[in-house]
């Protein structure tokens, strides 16, 4: 529901095209290779760069275990909005993705999991019918096979170009989370920079354990909306991961270098066993 487009071009960390990358947080110049070794965390200031789903999978999943499903789903234009198809096509070409989320199965330290990774690169990670459907399929696959689900969020909110259908994806994904819960299968959420709007107000806040990457922006209404509409002065750390932890909505802030280990621990701690 926020102007994801502006934010996209202002801060998207386009690490794939240049040899030398400038950190959007501290402006340090970093060699691409160095950054890759550091898991795309700025060695100077600790800024966590945005990742593509492929990079995230490479960092988290056991090698060559990720099997994508629902890969062929693509957007329609449910409210017949002028220009929407073209915009989707453009984003598909730019990002090499079909839409703003990739879902599949993999193992982490040999432990089965269903994994979904949103991409802010694709229309600001906005949730339309395709994202809603794929997240829902991931959650229901978890419920059906009793396999823990891990979702990495990154989103500017609902994809308003799909009108009321984008709003309904909030209910759809949340109700899928309810079914996962009813089967007592764990849902682990990793909030990455930025996660806002309709994604925050649906499955992103429904994890049994909610992890955030350091300094990630997490909120419902964006700072500009709040300052604009209401004219309120906002605290400096407003809507950071640290703010959200202090406010009780994030279980743990985990550095990217610890993330795989942490998820592996959570999977093992939630493994089925005789009590």
């Amino acid at each position, binding site marked *: *529901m*926020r*102007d994801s487009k502006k934010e996209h071009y202002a801060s998207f960390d386009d690490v794939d095209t240049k040899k030398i990358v400038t950190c959007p947080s501290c402006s340090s110049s970093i060699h691409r290779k160095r950054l890759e070794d550091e898991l795309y965390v700025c060695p100077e200031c600790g800024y966590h760069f945005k990742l593509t789903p492929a990079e995230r999978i490479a960092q988290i999943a056991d090698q060559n275990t990720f099997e994508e499903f*629902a890969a*062929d*789903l693509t*957007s*329609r*234009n*449910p*409210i017949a909005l002028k220009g929407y198809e073209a915009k989707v096509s453009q984003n598909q070409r730019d990002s090499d993705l079909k839409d703003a989320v990739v879902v599949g199965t993999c193992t982490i330290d040999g432990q089965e999991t269903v994994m979904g990774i949103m991409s802010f690169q694709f229309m600001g990670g906005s949730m339309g*019918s*395709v994202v*809603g*459907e794929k997240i829902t*399929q991931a959650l*229901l*696959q978890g*419920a*059906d096979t009793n396999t823990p689900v891990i979702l990495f969020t990154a989103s500017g909110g*609902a994809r*308003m*170009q*799909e*009108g*009321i*259908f984008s*709003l*309904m*994806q*909030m*209910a*759809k994904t*949340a*109700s899928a*989370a*309810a*079914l996962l*819960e*009813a*089967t*007592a299968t764990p849902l682990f959420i990793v909030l990455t920079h930025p996660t806002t709007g*309709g994604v925050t*107000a*649906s*499955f*992103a*806040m*429904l994890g049994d354990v909610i992890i955030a990457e350091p300094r990630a922006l997490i*909120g*419902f*209404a964006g700072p500009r909306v*709040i300052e604009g509409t*209401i004219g*309120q002065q*906002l605290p400096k750390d*407003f809507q950071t991961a640290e703010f959200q932890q202090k*406010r*009780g*909505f994030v279980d743990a802030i985990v550095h990217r270098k610890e993330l795989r280990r942490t998820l592996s621990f959570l999977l093992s701690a939630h493994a089925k066993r005789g009590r």
Partner: protein
Amino acid sequence: MNEQDKNPQKDQIDKLFGELEQLAQQQQMDLGSDLSTLKAKMVPVLKNRETTACSPWDKVCLARHVQRPGSLEYINMMCDDFMELHGDRCYGDDTALIGGIGTIDGRAITFIGNQKGSNLKENIARNHGMGHPEGYRKALRLVQQAEKFNRPVVSFIDTSGAYPGLASEERGIGEAIARNLKEFSVLKVPVLCFIIGEGGSGGALGIGVGDKLYMLENAVYSVISPEGFASILLRDSSKAEEAANTMKITAEDLKEFGIIHDIIPEPVGGAHKDPQLVASHIKKIITRDLDILCSKPADRLVRYRIKKIRGIGHFNGAQSWWDQLLNIFQLTRALK
């Protein structure tokens, strides 16, 4: 239609009948009842005409009309008795989102609803119907109480959205809405939702997941306000009217999409012209639906509700998924 209830046809008819009545009185003719019968006969005609004539933006204006009846008004008109219940048992009581227990023809129902004020002072007190997290948590508490006692739920939606402010974010408006979406979707009692005015975004959806969703004729339901849509996608916030006409937000659009179950007619000029009439329409639907839904076993109710929600979305490459859903329900003891 800048003045919100300006309506040339209606005005003209009013004027003509006014003059006729005056004439009749002057001549001491007792034609009052004949005249009103005649006038009433013209209303459906007018209504149909107006419905088709009313643009989406006109409906936005009507949905926001300051005199438009709100949740408490309808509740009080429909219920034999109503007791408002306060608080989320955690942080506070949100006056922008009300709830309580009422009876209709002796049947106890839990009501929840967004609540605007009917004048500026009340509107400020009720934060213009924009709920904080504690409002959504109160609603959740009350519907879970309803579930405990096997009491159906009726929800009235009427908000431009959840409150976009610091306090709202601090106390987790995203979490509060998310939790409601999840819990409402598996609630083991019938939930009927009525969009009576503005259905704005997550703040509306946060009390809007149920078995049946109805809209008043002039209500609107959208993912973002026309103003927001205009400012972001049309890059000009003054193009709200154009946005409204593009966004597909009227009851007719949503019925065509299969998102709502039915449209409830309003009197000429909008619901505020005859709140009692609208209340009686809503009451009839509540009684009819609950007679049916309350007799269904809880697991079937939930399965049907989930199936409906799960099916919403437009994309290429759909898969069959109904078997999987059935599987999960068979596995799931918690929903029985």
